[in-house]
């Protein structure tokens, strides 16, 4: 069972609990145990809590703090929202950036589509693209690393 199927199963169980007004549910199928407990008033609350996340104050939050000892720091650009990751403005055009591209604060790195809102994510740093950590068209989660940027002085 892959992660998508597990998510689907959990969605189904949560819907079942909601429908039958159950506070707890335990399931043992062929040795696979699932225990669900309603904490708030809705079992789906947890999954949904992540959904309504429009950008935090600054999209392209910087993730892990850079190591001060390094001469050139690395910044990880993480997703400010749940959405779909697009590396290019259109399916048939070149990506906004490729590894080794030089970028500055205003360089657009990607688009995150969330509720059909196309959110431009900028580099927020001057430097070079070291690594692209997500795939075009991939569903991504809040805080998921998208790019590593080697920041120039």
């Amino acid at each position, binding site marked *: 069972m892959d992660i998508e199927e597990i998510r689907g199963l959990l969605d*189904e169980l949560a819907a079942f609990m909601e429908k039958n007004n159950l506070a707890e549910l335990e399931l043992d199928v062929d040795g696979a145990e699932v225990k669900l407990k309603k904490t708030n008033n809705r079992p789906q609350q947890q999954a949904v809590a992540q*959904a*309504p996340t429009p950008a935090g104050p600054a999209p392209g939050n910087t993730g892990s703090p850079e190591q001060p000892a390094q001469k050139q720091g690395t910044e990880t650009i993480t997703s400010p929202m749940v959405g779909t990751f697009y590396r290019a403005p*259109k399916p048939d055009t070149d990506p906004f950036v490729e590894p080794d591209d030089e970028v500055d604060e205003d360089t657009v790195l990607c688009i995150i589509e969330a509720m059909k809102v*196309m959110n*431009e994510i900028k580099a927020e740093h001057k430097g070079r693209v070291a690594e692209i950590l997500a795939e075009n068209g*991939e569903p991504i989660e809040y805080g998921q690393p998208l790019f590593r940027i080697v920041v120039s002085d």
Partner: protein
Amino acid sequence: MSLLKELERGLPTRVIGRKVRVYDVVTSTNDLLWELSDRGAEEGTAVFADGQTHGRGRLGRSWWSPTGKGIWMSVLLRPPTAEGAVPMTTIVGALATADAVRATTRLPALIRWPNDILVRGKKAAGVLVEARAAPNGRILVLGIGIDVNASRSEMPQDIAKLATSLSEEANEEINRLELAKSLLGELDRWYQIELEQDTETINQRWRSLSATLGSRIVLEQGRQRYEGTVFDVDVRFGLALRLDRGGIKHFRGEHVTVLDEA
């Protein structure tokens, strides 16, 4: 001079419609409004153009915008980005468009999840929302295109297959100025409802205008394909699908990349 020039006098609305700029032909009203935004345009500023040379839809798809035949407009918004606030701007744009079309033309406009407006099964309008980071929060440009008075014979072939215009469906010319005023009023009204985070009012209207509810669809999330029947639409929980292979699955709008009728 554009028929819509009168809009520049402004409407007695709360946020959207007070400040309106009308242009003849522009590249795209979204692009133009981003430029105005960079120069400090205030929230609620709306731009209309008689025509667009590079009108666009989702993912850079081009949007046919014949001069003098449609409503091609964009409005600048800065909804609060507080943690937990639900991004509803796309559906707010779709609801306002459907309600304005209904009020002005009496045509049965419906919403195909989440950003197309259909009349009798064919696309008559679309919504495109773009967002950029701003020093304190986000700036959104909500773009709306409505095919108002184009005749079927002048539509490019590939468009005529899937799209229609309001005049084709109503069998009469539609007053673009009246439609534009109605649209601004409806946008202002629905935007207030969004600001109040009144998801229930939005969901209720959305369900009553949904062309997707009850229909069989195929959608893609990541690399997975799902087929089923839509039994609910909800701004918070997304689209609820009764899967053909059994069970129920919710799809948040954020993760659905392809949606077709099965």
